[in-house]
Structures are given as structure tokens and as C-alpha cells.
């Protein structure tokens, strides 16, 4: 509790005690009036002060000003009517302050809870100098320095292990609870917690560029991108208060005048009282507070599960996703290809593989990398020249003086070479050397475990169209799509085709409200990620490009997280709507009853504070996403 809050609590308690005593003791009228006056000042002096400032700044719709008018009005009526009952005015002020107090306490508490969930910021880095460890600010560590991470400590900066082996707890980053083993030569990512052994790490990035900094920045700024519901509420709040105030003025003046004209007694007291009741309900705070709080809690809960959502607006869009488009490689399949066969080669298999691997040496495409892996030896770059890569086709290069072309059927046909078809399913890399067909290499990719369940879960979560896009061959695509139960697939696409296909799918939707999400590995599908309503990058731990391009980042590559993200967003949006509807219903109900003279000021203040308390408690529910 902050100092401000403690002071407020003391004032609330003092005023409550005073109010109860005044009601229990039967003091003479003057003493009792003085008592009420003191209680009123104790609880409301700052409101009065702010109301005064509001007048000076010509802001008639300031909530403090309105509260001051309502309570002072009630006191004036009590004096005029000689009732000696000032309970109402003091109580309204008291409950208003209790509401404010609760709001600031609850918001502060949930803010802390949520930041604690994301508490991955390392405080120091250990540097070894002359055999002793020194703790320094991670900001001061230069690239290439060697840092020491002891068991139980957080890895402060991204780097490569140079000494030692250990297991890492990555749960703060990925939500994954199974520790990950690491040893010499492994890249390791900041934000993980070292569990068992001492590690020496050569840093590859500055602290500000490290994963942990990127993630923190992302999460901290996430709720700044406002959702449509937030925009709606702040627009609403702008109109609501003036509207209520004007109707209060109308309520105070028009009915009595009308009654006077028709010869009835004017009843000014009654109508002014009803108008004051209006002012009590005029504060839109309950509504305004609960919306960003819900989003903040939802985003916080999601990031604890390894789902980073870059803004409230994306959380809102995610909840409306009806179509999910997947990139196949690296998303539905492991993206780890293995050479499963070499056919029709006039030369030794190993030699063909060597040519292909060398030709592809400059490419970072998963297929190229798997060829290089299968080749198994050091790639001597100086044997390769004139590398020319054509997206969606393959690579041409000169290796040891031979012109080598390695790629799919399209490439072969363009070069005027007739490739020999393959009967096995998988990605086929045809190789031509010096313009003559030299056989093909079959590479197959494995489906990720759990993809099938994840897709079923997505369907359960309300997604009704699953689409797969791939640059891979028709045959491979159809097999994967059938295996996984995907509705439609498009194969043999060039990178540019993916964008136009996503645009086509966007145009095909029955309504603008049904959103389309694209899921990719974030490495070479940045244009598609940004074209879709919402771009989701998977397995992005450590990939800056993916974090940059996507709207939602899944830290590990568990496909189940997509469905979980959708469910989290649905829950959060449901809470937001519940709060909007509930708060509006109670406020308008109260306004109507107040106008009719059924609800008095007590009811109004209870409605105001009660709605806020319930809305805030409801908003905090968005944080609980563990079992979704």
C-alpha cells in the first residue's frame, strides 16, 4: 500500500467512526451539525479542493466538481428542509472515496501481480576477473565478453556456451516446464534460469538487444495499442458525463416549471434532489477502469504461458479469428528435413549430395540446411561461385567448375531439362550438372507431435477454416493436409503467392468481422504475417525478425498454444463485454429510477461503487488462464 493509500484509509476509517458515533449519540442539533461538517471535511476536503481547481480551469464536468455539487447540494437541501440529517451527504462522499481507494488498491495490486509474472529482468551479470566473480550491470557487458552464470541465476544476455553444461528452466519465456539441456557450443537465451551447473557464456548481443530486453519491451508496451472496445469506452466516457449533467439540470428545472404551469405545486426540493442523484452516477470510472485492466490482465496471463501479444487490439482480433492459415514448413512440420533417398544418379550418391550441398551453401532455407547436414562435412565455400537463388525454384551455382542446378521441377523445366519423377513422397530436389540431369534427392519432413490435437482444439475454439500454404510439392502437401485434417491446401507457391493467396482468402470471408490469422515461423514470411489480420510467429525464441514482424509471438513451437491463445482472448473479450453491459445496465437503471424518484442518493452511490468493485474483480479474472 502506498503512502497516499494509507492516508486515504485512515481518513476513511476516521470518517466512518465519526459517522457511526453521530448516529448513535443523540447530540444537540448544533453539535451534531458540527460533527457532520467535520466528518464531511475529513473525507472530502481533497475533492472540494480539486473541484475548486476544476472551476478555475473551466472544467465543469470534472468528477470531483460533480461530487462536490451533489454532496453540497444535499447538505443545502438538509439545511433548507431543517431535517438535520446530513448522513446522506457524508455517506455519499465516504462511499465515493471508498470506491476510489479500492480502485487504486486493486489496480496497483494487479499491476504488481502481472509484472511479477513477467519478472524475467536480470539484475546483474557475473564477470570473472582474476579468478573472482564480479557483479556488474548487464548494460555494461560488451559483445564477446565471457559471463558466468551460476546455478539458480538468470541468464542475463544471449550468448554461446563456452564452458560447462547444465539444464535451463525456460518457463518464464515459454511457459514450458520441462527443463532444457545445454552444453558447450549451444546458443543460450537470456531470461532462462540456470538450474544445475556453472556455465560460461560468450555474449553475442548487447543487453538491450538480448531476448529478455526485447520481450520486456514488448510486454510493457503491449497494452498501449488500444482495442476497439477501449476506444469505444473512452469516446463514450467523453459524452456520458456531459449528457448526465445536462439531464440533471433539465431534471431540476423543467418538471417543476411544467408543474407550475399546470397549477400543481412545483416541488423544487424533490426535483433538485433527483437531479443531485444524477450527478452521483455521472462518473464513468467503473466502466473506464475495467476495460484496460481486463486487457492488461489477459495479456499478462498470456505472456506467462509463453504467448506474447503485442497489443490489446490484437487480443481483440484474435478472439474473432475464424480462419487460420498455416505455413507448412516449420509450423505444422518440424522443418527439420532429412535426406531419405537418392535416386537415378549416374554418380555416387555421396558425390551428388556433395554437389547439391555445396550449391546450396549460401541458402538458409530449411531444405538447404538439411542437405548441408546430410553432407556432414565442412562446407568449403571457396569451391563455389556464382550462386544464384530463385525463390520457390532452387539454386544455381558453379561448383568446382561444374554448373550445378538444384531445385524443384520448375527449375529443371525452365532450364530445359526433363526431370525424372519420384514415387516416394517428400520434397524432391532435382540436380542437374552441366546441363544434364543427375538424379534427385528425396527429403522428408516430419509432422510436429501434437499438431493434430492442436488443430482439433482450434476447431473447438470456433475456428471453422484451416488452410495450409506451402512452397512444397503438391504430393507432399496433400499427404500432410490429409493426415492433419486440414480443410484446404495450396502447394507449390512462391513466396509472393502466399501474400496474394492470403489476400484472396481475406476477400472470400463472409463478413469483415471474421478475422484471418496467419501462422508461420516468422523467418521468411514477414510479408504474409503483416498482410493477415493477425500474424502469429511460432518458435520465435531468439529470432528478432519474428518478434518484429508478428502481432503475436509464441515463444516455443508448441502448436497447442495457438488454440490456447484464442481461448485466452475469448475469455478476456467476454469479460470486457460483461463489464460494459453490466456497468451500463446498472448505471442507466439507476438513472431511470433516480429520475422517477425511486432511487435515492444512497442507491446511486452504491450502484456507482458496487459496479466498479464488481467490474474490477471481474477484470482480474482475465489473469487466470492456466487451465484454459
Amino acid at each position, binding site marked *: 500500500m502506498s503512502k497516499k493509500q494509507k492516508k486515504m484509509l485512515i481518513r476513511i476509517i476516521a470518517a466512518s467512526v465519526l459517522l457511526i458515533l453521530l448516529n448513535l449519540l443523540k447530540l444537540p442539533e448544533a453539535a451534531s451539525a458540527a460533527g457532520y461538517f467535520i466528518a464531511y471535511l475529513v473525507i472530502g476536503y481533497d475533492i472540494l479542493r*480539486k473541484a475548486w*481547481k476544476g472551476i478555475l*480551469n473551466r*472544467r465543469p464536468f*470534472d*468528477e470531483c466538481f460533480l461530487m462536490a455539487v451533489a454532496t453540497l447540494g444535499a447538505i443545502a437541501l438538509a439545511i433548507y428542509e431543517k431535517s438535520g440529517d446530513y448522513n446522506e451527504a457524508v455517506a455519499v462522499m465516504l462511499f465515493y472515496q471508498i470506491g*476510489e481507494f479500492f*480502485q*487504486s488498491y486493486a*489496480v496497483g495490486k494487479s*499491476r504488481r501481480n*502481472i509484472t511479477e509474472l513477467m519478472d524475467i529482468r536480470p539484475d546483474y551479470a557475473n564477470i570473472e576477473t582474476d579468478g573472482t566473480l564480479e557483479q556488474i550491470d548487464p548494460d555494461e557487458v560488451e559483445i564477446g565478453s565471457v559471463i558466468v552464470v551460476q546455478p539458480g541465476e538468470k541468464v542475463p544476455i544471449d550468448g554461446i556456451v563456452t564452458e560447462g553444461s547444465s539444464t535451463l528452466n525456460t518457463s518464464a519465456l515459454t511457459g514450458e516446464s520441462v527443463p532444457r539441456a545445454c552444453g558447450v557450443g549451444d546458443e543460450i537465451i537470456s531470461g532462462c534460469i540456470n538450474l544445475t551447473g556453472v556455465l560460461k557464456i560468450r555474449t553475442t548481443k548487447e543487453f538491450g538487444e538480448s531476448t529478455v530486453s526485447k520481450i520486456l519491451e514488448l510486454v*510493457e*508496451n503491449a*497494452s*498501449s*495499442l*488500444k482495442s476497439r472496445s477501449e476506444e469505444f469506452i*473512452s469516446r463514450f*466516457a*467523453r459524452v456520458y458525463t456531459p449528457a448526465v449533467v445536462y439531464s440533471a439540470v433539465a431534471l431540476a428545472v423543467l418538471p417543476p416549471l411544467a408543474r407550475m404551469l399546470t397549477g400543481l405545486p412545483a416541488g423544487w426540493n424533490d426535483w433538485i434532489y433527483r437531479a443531485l442523484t444524477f450527478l452521483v452516477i455521472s*462518473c*464513468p*470510472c467503473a466502466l*473506464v*477502469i475495467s*476495460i*484496460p*485492466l481486463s*486487457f*492488461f490482465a489477459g495479456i499478462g496471463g498470456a505472456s506467462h504461458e509463453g504467448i506474447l501479444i503485442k497489443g490489446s487490439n490484437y487480443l481483440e482480433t484474435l478472439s474473432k479469428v475464424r480462419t487460420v492459415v498455416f505455413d507448412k514448413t516449420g509450423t505444422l512440420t518440424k522443418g527439420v528435413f532429412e535426406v531419405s533417398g537418392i535416386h537415378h544418379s549416374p554418380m555416387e550418391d555421396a558425390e551428388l549430395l556433395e554437389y547439391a550441398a555445396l550449391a546450396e551453401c549460401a541458402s538458409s532455407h530449411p531444405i538447404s540446411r538439411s542437405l548441408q547436414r546430410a553432407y556432414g562435412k565442412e562446407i568449403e565455400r571457396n569451391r563455389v561461385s556464382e550462386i544464384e537463388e530463385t525463390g520457390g525454384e532452387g539454386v544455381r551455382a558453379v561448383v568446382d567448375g561444374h554448373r550445378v542446378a538444384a531445385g524443384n521441377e520448375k527449375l529443371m523445366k525452365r532450364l530445359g531439362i526433363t526431370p525424372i519423377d519420384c514415387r516416394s513422397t517428400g520434397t524432391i530436389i532435382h540436380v542437374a550438372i552441366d546441363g544434364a540431369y543427375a538424379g534427385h534427392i528425396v527429403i522428408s519432413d516430419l509432422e510436429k507431435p501434437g499438431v493434430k490435437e492442436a488443430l482439433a482444439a482450434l476447431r473447438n475454439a470456433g475456428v471453422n477454416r484451416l488452410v495450409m500454404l506451402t512452397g512444397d510439392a503438391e504430393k507432399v502437401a496433400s499427404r500432410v493436409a490429409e493426415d492433419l485434417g486440414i480443410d484446404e491446401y495450396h502447394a507449390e507457391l512462391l513466396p509472393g503467392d502466399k501474400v496474394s493467396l492470403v489476400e484472396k482468402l481475406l476477400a472470400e470471408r463472409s463478413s469483415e468481422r471474421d478475422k484471418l490469422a496467419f501462422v508461420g515461423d516468422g523467418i521468411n514470411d514477414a510479408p504474409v504475417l503483416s498482410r493477415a489480420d493477425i500474424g502469429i510467429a511460432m518458435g520465435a525464441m531468439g529470432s528478432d525478425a519474428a518478434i518484429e514482424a508478428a502481432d503475436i509471438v509464441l515463444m516455443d513451437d508448441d502448436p497447442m498454444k495457438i488454440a490456447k491463445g484464442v481461448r485466452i482472448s475469448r475469455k478476456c473479450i467476454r469479460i470486457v463485454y460483461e463489464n460494459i453491459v453490466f456497468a451500463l445496465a446498472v448505471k442507466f437503471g439507476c438513472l431511470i429510477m433516480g429520475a422517477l424518484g425511486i432511487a435515492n442518493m444512497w442507491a446511486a452511490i452504491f450502484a456507482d461503487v458496487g459496479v466498479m468493485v464488481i467490474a474490477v474483480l471481474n477484470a482480474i479474472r482475465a489473469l487466470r488462464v492456466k487451465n484454459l
Partner: protein
Amino acid sequence: MKKTYKIEVDCANCANLMEDTAGKVAGVASVTVNFMTQKMIVTFEEGQDPKTVMKEVLKACKKVEPDCEIEL
């Protein structure tokens, strides 16, 4: 140019008011107030000095919400 400032504001509606007000100050291209993280993200117009602009922003914000604070 975009800069982030730490702010102190007690109620969500006041944060909205601050956002509205700050957005109207000369030299400010756009502004977002994040009530939950208590941050104000200001994009300045080309060629404006953030320091002088922020002074005006603070002054304007104090008018709508006397209790607010912006760490400059």
C-alpha cells in the same frame, strides 16, 4: 521522434483525459497514455524539441488532472 515518459495518474478516465489534452498540444503528433503501465508515449512532430513540448504537455495535463505527474 517517439519518447516514453513515466507518469502518475490515479484513475483511468483521468488517463484518457490526459491523452486527449496532450494530443492537442502544439508539437505533439500523437500520444498514447497507458494507464496500466503508467506510461505516456509521445510522438513529436518533425523538428520539435521534446523538452519544451513536454513542458507544455505537463502544464496542459495539470489543468485537467491536478494530481497527475509526468517524469520529464
